[in-house]
C-alpha cells in the first residue's frame, strides 16, 4: 500500500478566496494519519504511541485548514467539520451519499468544496 495519496481539490462559490484565490489544487497526504486528525507532526511509522486511521475526508478538512487555507479559518471549519452552507462533493457525488467525513480517501480522488453563502 502506498504511503501517500494524491488528491485533486477544487473550491467554488467564493471559498477559493480563502485559498489564495486558486480554484484548483493538487495535494499529497499520508494514507495513514493520526486518529485525532493532528496534521502537524510527521507520523513516525515505528511509533506505536499514536493511534492511527486511514486518511478520510474529516482528516482532509483539517489538513486543508492547516496547510492550504490562507485566512479566516472560521469561514471554512466549524465543530470539526466544514461550516454549514459548504457543500462537499466526492468524485462528483454529494458527500452525504458517501459517508461524509468518514469516507476513506483513495489515490486520485477529486474533492470539491462549494460555498452556498456568497451572493444571491
Amino acid at each position, binding site marked *: 500500500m502506498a504511503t501517500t495519496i494524491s488528491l485533486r481539490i477544487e473550491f467554488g462559490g467564493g471559498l477559493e478566496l480563502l485559498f489564495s484565490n486558486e480554484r484548483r489544487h493538487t495535494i499529497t497526504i499520508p494514507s495513514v494519519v493520526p486518529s485525532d486528525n493532528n496534521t502537524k507532526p510527521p507520523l513516525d511509522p515505528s511509533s506505536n504511541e499514536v493511534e492511527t486511521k486511514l486518511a478520510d475526508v474529516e482528516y482532509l478538512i483539517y489538513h486543508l485548514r492547516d496547510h492550504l487555507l490562507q485566512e479566516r479559518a472560521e469561514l471554512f471549519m466549524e465543530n470539526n467539520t466544514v461550516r*454549514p452552507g459548504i*457543500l462537499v462533493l466526492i468524485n462528483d457525488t454529494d458527500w452525504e451519499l458517501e459517508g461524509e467525513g468518514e469516507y476513506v480517501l483513495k489515490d486520485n480522488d477529486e474533492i*470539491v468544496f462549494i460555498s452556498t453563502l456568497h451572493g444571491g
Partner: protein
Amino acid sequence: MAPKACALCQNAKAILKRPKTGQQICKDCFFYVFETEIHNTIMQANLFSRGDRVAIGASGGKDSTVLAYVLKTLNERYDYGLDLFLLSIDEGITGYRDDSLETVKRNQQQYSMPLKILSYDELYGWTMDRIVSQIGKKNNCTFCGVFRRQALDRGAAMLQYDIAETVLMNIMRGDIARLGRCTSIVTQGEDTIKRSKPFKYAYEKEIVMYAYFKKLDYFSTECIYSPDAYRGHARTFLKDLEAARPSAIIDIIHSGEAFEVREEIKATQKIQQTCKRCGYMSSNDLCKACTLLEGLERGMAASGITDRARKRLDAEGPAPENLRTIPFYQPPSGSPTVVVEATA
C-alpha cells in the same frame, strides 16, 4: 460504501441527496425534477401569460444565473411564449459590481438574451462608492436596497433577495406587517408590473448543485460593503438551522405564509399611494428613495435612517427648488411586463 442507484430511475448512480425529501437521485433525474418543480410552481401560481415580456434581474450571482438558465430552458421546452431579457443594476461598486457585470455580459452571450444595464449613477446621480464615502459603511445597505428595488422596477425587473432570508429577517426584527407581503409568490402592484418568485420552494443546496453540474458561470464574491449588514447574520443563522434540520428553510417559508396578521396590526400598515415627487409606489408622501436621495443631496444622509436626523432636516426648511430628483416614474402601459425574482 457501495454506490446507490437513483431512487427515481432505479438505474444510474445517485449523486445527490435532496434536502426536501432525503431522496437519493442521479444527475439526469435531478435536472428533470428541479426544472419540473419550477415549471409546476410557475403553472400553479399562474406566473406568466403567453406574450409576457419577462425581465430577469441578473446580478451575476448563482440564483439569478440559475433562474435565467432554467427559465430559458422551460420557455423552450413548454413553449411559454415569453420574451425574456436580462436586467442588471450597476450600483457603482468598484471591484465588486464591475466584476459581476462581466459575468452577466457572458451570460447574455451564453443564453443569447438581450441585456439592459441601469446604473444608480444615471438614475440617482450617486454611485454606492460615493454614498459610502459620505455615510460610511454602517447604513449603506439601506440606501442600496431601496435604490435597487426602484431601479429594477424602473427597468421593469426584480429585486435580488432570497425570500426565506427576508421572511426570517422580518421575524427577527418583529416586522410582522411585512411578512405577508414578502411571502406572497406573486405580488401584484397597482400598476401592471408583477413580481414573481419561481424559486420560492427550491433549496439553496439544489440551486448550487444545479449550477455546478450544469457548469453555469456565476460570480460569488461578497459585496465589499456588506459584512456589517443584518442579512449576513440571518444567513449564517439559517445555515446553522438547516444543518440541524434540513427542512428549516421550507418550514420558515411556510410559517411566513401561515402567519396571520391581526386586523388592528394590519391597520398600522399605511395605505399605498404614489410618491408626490417621483410617482413611484409609496406608503408616505415621499417614497423611501426620494427621502434618502434628499438627505444625500442636502448633506444629511442620516435623515432617511433615523427620526431624529429627519427632524433636524425638516428644521432646516423645505427641500430647495433645484434639488436633484429621480425621473418621474411611468408605470408601464400596454402589454404587461413581469419581473422575476431569483429567490432561494
